[in-house]
Each structure stands twice: as structure tokens, then as C-alpha cells.
């Protein structure tokens, strides 16, 4: 069963490409399965507690995710103030502290969706509260990337044609026309303690956090130094 939730952007979003470092904040156009699943897990834990989150994690982890993006997407290029670890933390006589973080600026992209984003989530569990939890997702990606569900999710047996499935390798072939994005997802056997940020269990890129080449149906329409405009095909 697919749960299809429609979200509207409340603010600009930013979700760094998995290969980008903090000094090169290139953003993805749409949320990745990993980002969505983490947001859903967060909602489940806030609503039902850590035990429920842990119990439902296998379902969330192996769930299928598909998106239907907005009509147009604008990526704004800017920079923002950031903190980064000091390589040589010297004593600050003004405060009497050894500052471990230094202030600097870093490039960031912020994404504006013109129109609604639909996320389809297929869970193989009979849990009744998926609809409620899906509407409680309020931000994706970088903190402050707020979204708002505009209605309870609709349910469908089949994924509508205009959705792009993000959680399967494209073995049948590849579409040349579109915009390629490297999107991360959880491997099907990732355990809860691996995604639990209060443990030190490792989450490895490539084996636990897998990267997929997804071609989104968008074409760059216009661009300049400060922005890039994409239109859905």
C-alpha cells in the first residue's frame, strides 16, 4: 500500500549532496529516501517513544519511497555563517576560553519549490498510524527546511506513473533526459543502532548508506551566478 502525502514548502530547503563537505554545500533538488526515512523515524520516536521507533525501524528502513516534485525548482546560491572546528584553538584573553569552534562562511544552496511535493511511501507493516506520522513531518534536510502536509495521505495500491521511484536501482535502463542526482538510502539490513546518533556504531557509506544515481524529470531552464531554474519535464 502506498501512502501519498502532499507537502508544501514553508521555507527554502537545503539538503547537501552526500559527497559535499561543509565547505561546499551543494544541495539536492528533492529529498532523498535517507532524509525522508530519518524524518519519519524522528516523528515516530517523538510520537511513540524510542521503543516504537526501534520496533518500526525495519519497516521504515526497507520501505519504498517515490516522489513527484513541484512544477519548478529554483536553486539559490548564497553563503552563510558557519562554525567549524578550530585547528589550533588558542586561548582567548577576552573570554578566558579556548574556543573549539571558529566562525567563518560557507557556500550554501537553498532550494525553492514552486508547487507541491508529493512523497509516496510504501510500508509493508500494518501499523495504523502511518497517515498521522506522515503528516507530522515538518522538516527535511538541513534544519529550517520546513514543509507542511496539506492533507491526510491518500492511499493507492499502485504507484502513479508520474512518480519517480527513488529506492530501486535502475536496472531496466536509464533515461538520458533529466537531471541526475546521487541520492542516499538505507541498505535493507541497517540496524536501528546504526542510525541512532546516540551510539557509536558505524554507518558506512556504500554498504549501509547506499548511493543511487536517480534521474529526476527536470531540465535546467535558466541559470546565472545566483540561481538555477529547473522545470519538470
Amino acid at each position: 500500500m502506498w501512502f501519498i502525502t502532499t507537502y508544501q514548502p514553508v521555507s527554502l530547503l537545503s539538503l547537501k549532496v552526500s559527497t559535499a563537505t561543509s565547505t561546499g554545500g551543494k544541495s539536492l533538488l528533492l529529498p532523498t529516501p535517507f532524509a525522508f526515512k530519518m524524518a519519519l523515524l524522528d516523528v515516530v520516536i517523538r510520537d511513540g517513544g524510542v521503543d516504537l521507533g526501534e520496533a518500526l525501524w525495519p519497516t521504515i528502513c526497507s520501505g519504498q519511497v517515490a516522489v513527484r516534485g513541484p512544477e519548478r525548482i529554483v536553486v539559490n546560491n548564497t553563503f552563510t555563517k558557519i562554525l567549524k572546528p578550530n585547528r589550533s584553538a588558542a586561548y582567548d584573553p577576552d573570554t578566558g576560553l579556548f574556543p573549539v569552534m571558529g566562525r567563518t562562511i560557507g557556500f550554501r544552496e537553498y532550494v525553492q519549490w514552486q508547487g507541491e511535493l508529493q512523497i509516496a511511501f510504501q510500508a509493508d507493516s500494518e501499523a495504523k498510524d502511518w497517515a498521522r506520522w506522515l503528516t507530522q513531518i515538518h522538516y527535511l534536510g538541513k534544519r529550517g527546511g520546513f514543509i507542511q502536509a496539506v492533507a491526510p495521505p491518500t492511499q493507492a495500491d499502485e504507484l502513479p506513473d508520474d512518480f519517480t521511484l527513488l529506492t530501486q536501482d535502475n536496472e531496466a535502463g536509464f533515461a538520458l533526459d533529466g537531471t541526475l542526482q546521487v541520492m542516499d538510502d538505507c541498505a535493507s539490513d541497517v540496524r536501528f543502532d546504526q542510525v541512532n546518533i546516540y551510539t557509536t556504531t558505524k554507518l558506512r557509506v556504500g554498504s549501509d548508506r547506499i548511493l543511487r544515481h536517480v534521474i529526476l524529470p527536470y531540465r535546467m531552464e535558466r541559470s546565472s551566478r545566483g540561481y538555477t531554474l529547473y522545470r519538470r519535464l
Partner: protein
Amino acid sequence: MDYQHYYIPKSTRTLSDALLAFGVATVLQELLQRHAPQAEVILRDAGSYYAIDTGVPIQEAWLAEAHQHIPFVTDERRHKVPEGLEFAAARSVDETWETFRRFLEQQEQLRQQVEADDVAAQALADLAPEPDWTIVTYLGDYRMQAQHIHNGLVEQWLRTGQQFPGLNMRTVLELFSSPTADWDAIAADWKKAVKESDFKNKDTVTASQLFNPHMGKGQNQPKANRLSMGNEKLFWLLEYLKAVGLWAAAVPTRATNADLRKTYVLAPRELRMRYHRRVFSRFRERIRNEGPIKQDIMTVLLYTEVLLEQSLEDDALDIFDDGRVTDVVNGMEVATYQLLSANSYTMMNLAFLGLPDWMPHIRTSEDARTYIALLQEHRERIRAIDEDRSEGYALLQAYRDFVAGNDLKPFFTFLAGYSQYLMSALDRKNYYVRPFSEFHLRRLFDMTTPELSPILADEGFRNVAYAIRMSTVTPIYLDRNQRRFEVRYGLGQDLLRKAQYPDDFIQALSEFIQSYNDETLRVHERTKGAARRRLVTTQDIESVVRLVDTYGSKTVCNLLVAFGYARDPRVKPEEELGTATPEGEVAQA
């Protein structure tokens, strides 16, 4: 495996993808040059991938031969050609700078000569640095922290090529033979093949921000439970190919007025590699450092101009296939680096700039010449704008959005601002700031927005634009004591302010026309016919009103200001017009 078609994914949406594509295309081109010289390598943008067609299948037997694609970049202090590779090509950063300094000195001497002779000009040409000299100095800039990585890649290519003939080239072909190739597995195979050698732990290198601008030293953790600063690692062959791509298709520049570097990399649409070399070499020779915004503008304008010039010279307009410039090259990927600390540049912006895609069909040499003239005029006008002044800065920003985004809206903003900038400059006798020519402006609008052509062809519109011109840019060229007609400063801005509502606009325009006609008659009478200019007639006004009804007041006003402040070479200042009486009737405005 198909040995003729190769695919490079655009997985980063940065200049890194283009560097990789050019790197692969260059390596294949050089391979073919030795074994199938007639074959043509074509690099094509296929949406989510770059696709390469080598024309003929690559033969297994060709792969064993080791070949150096890019030189070592050496200097006096730290970076030398490694031992055992003394035969390898190298370029010295110090010598490159020295050559450039000598070239500048010679250029200065030549400039001071009253009459430059051919010998001196030839001496200057002989001293000119190689077109790709900026790549040497770019890599040699210690603040980019890439020279060591670059040389390490060249060394590894040569040494592994000697020890494992054909392995590297075979791996390159495998990496790009399919759009869905498993790069991790192919990299693992390479590592396995060299495991008995000194290279067993040298399968990855630090991802330099020069080749991967989005991967500078910083935080990147797969799990948000710790924070640590570090470099990313990538398969070395990918990085080597990006280094090759840098030499093939990048133009590094330095801002003249800021601690800032910009690197432009060509984003091809459908490019023959052999032809690309000719065009790009010429482009590199002509590009100069500018301010940050002007640099963006000049780069895209100049590349388009050079592409057209070269195709014209080579009688090779067929590269456009009766289409557009962007059917050959899409634009430029740009990375901007700011010097935030004394020792390293930090990437501050990643963008894509489109080429000025104004002419829909480039078919004849006449088309190409017209286009070149148009681009030259725009380059000259932009060059005269002072980026260090706030109004110049804002103008250039608007123009960049127009030229890079092929968006006419910011061009109207630019033209409105430029009208003021122009009047202010001319008033201060800064005659190097010049108006756009009416002819080229008309061509530009005819090509980009043919739906507006009826406005430009309208007699009434042209007469009103003439009246604006005769009240602004034409009289201002005269000395104050010679002027017989008033210069109306701020006229364009006044009209644009009223353009929001058609009624307000028509009223403002009518007031101007009435005052213009009054002045025309008054001066004509006072000078006994010595000074004259055409009157605006009632038909002209009716015509403009009809245009406003059809196209809207903002569109008509934008165009009136654009053409009103343009230069019409046929119109001369009023005192040169003789003693004829005013033409037309007095408008009942």
C-alpha cells in the same frame, strides 16, 4: 562491451562533471590521434550524462602504449619532476611567470613606440606565453593546494602505465562504457590488479577542491554523531581525468579588485574535440582578468565571439547545423574561490552561466558577422562600466542575469539603469561610456523576441524614441554653450516610474511630447531655422497608444527607453542639420 560510446554522469552538477568529460574525451582523442587519425571524437550533452562518440571502436591493442597527457607543474622550491621520470614533459611555474613578465614589458615598449613596426610586433608575438599558461600558474598557486596532488596524479599515471601496460586505459574505458557502470567495483578491480606492487594502497587520492569544488576540506560524516575535519578521498583515475580536463577546457582567472579566483569550464552541447582545441586556444589567448561580475560577462561574450570568428575563418558554420550557439556549447560552469585565510582559497560559489543565445539560426557568414558585431558592441559597452562604483556594480549584475540566463527582464532593468549611467558619464565628459546602437539593439530584439518586432517597426514608436534621443543622448555630446536644446536628465527614469499603469504612462509621455514640441518650435524660431528637429505628430501618439493597448505600458515604455537612449548613426547634433524647417505637424498632446 561497446568500445565506441562512452558515458560520463553529471553526478555533482558542478564543473567537476565537465572536467571529467573533457578529460575522458581528451584521453580518447589522443589515443585515436596515434592510431586512427581520421576519427573524430564528439562530446555531447545527453541531459543527465555526457556522451562521447569516438567515431571508430577503440582497439584493445592500442591500450598498452603509455602516453603522457598533461605535464608536471614544477617550481624552483618544492615541486620537481620525480626521479626516474626525467623524460616526462614539465612546465615551470617560475618560468611561466617570467615569460609573462617579459611579454608585458615588450607590450609596454611597443605601446610607447609612435609607430610600431612589424619586427616589434613579431617580437611581441614570439614572447607571448602559451595559451594555457594560466593553468600552470593556477596549479602553481600554493593557496589552491593542488600542485602536489596534480603532480602525484601525473606520476602515478606514468609509473603505473610503465609497470602495468594497458591497465589504466582499460580501466578508463570500463568506467565510462556504460551509464550504469559500477565505479566502486571497477576501482576495486584496478586495486586488485596492482596489489603486488607499490601501488596497492594508492588507489585513492585526496579530492582537491580545484577539481571538486564542492568537496573542499570540511565535515562530511555519514552519521551525525561526531564532527571532524578532513579531506574526502576519490579513485585516483577519476581525479587524473579531471586534471586532464582542466588543461583541456578550463580558464582560471583572478579578480582585479578582490582576493578572488574564478574558474570557468566549458559545458559542451555537441562539440568536436579537434575543433574545440582551436577555438579554446584562441579564447584563452584573449581572455583577460576583470572584476568578478564583469569577468562572468566577458567570459561568455568573448567565448561566443571567438567561436563564431573561428567558424567564420574556417568556413565551418556547419558546426551550428543552422541552429544556435547553444547547439554547440551550453555555457560555462563556474567556481568562485575567495581568499578567506592567508594560506588557502575557499570555494564560495558554484554556478552555471549560459552563453548569449540570441540568434536562433546561424546559417550564413552574414549571420555570423552580424552576431559578432553585436557581441563586440556589448563587450565594449560592458567594459566601460566601472564595477567599483555601486551603480556600475548593480548594472553589471542585471546584465549578467540577462546574458547568462538569456532573460530579457533584467536586460530592461539594465537598459533603464544604463540610460542614467550613460547620461551621468557623458555629462562628466567620459565619452568612453557610449550608447548602444539602435541598429544592433533592434537586431537583438528581433532575434530574441520576434513578437515585439511590430513595436520596433512602428513609425510612431520610432518617432517618439527619436524625440527621447534628441532630448537626451544627442544634445549631451555638445558643449553646454553650444546646446540649443535642453538636455532632459532623468527622462527615462520618469517614464519608467509611470509605466506601471497605462493611463499614467500615456499622461507622462504626452507631457514630455508637448514640452518637446514646444521647445522644438521655440528654438527653431529663435535660431531662425538653424536648429531643428522633427516634431512628434498626433499620429505618432495615437500609434503609441495603440501599442500600449496591445502590448502593455511596461513593455512599450521599456522599449522606448531602450531605443530612446540608443545611438542612431544617421542622426547628427542639431546644429549640423542645416536650416530646413521642422518636419511634420505640431502634436496636439
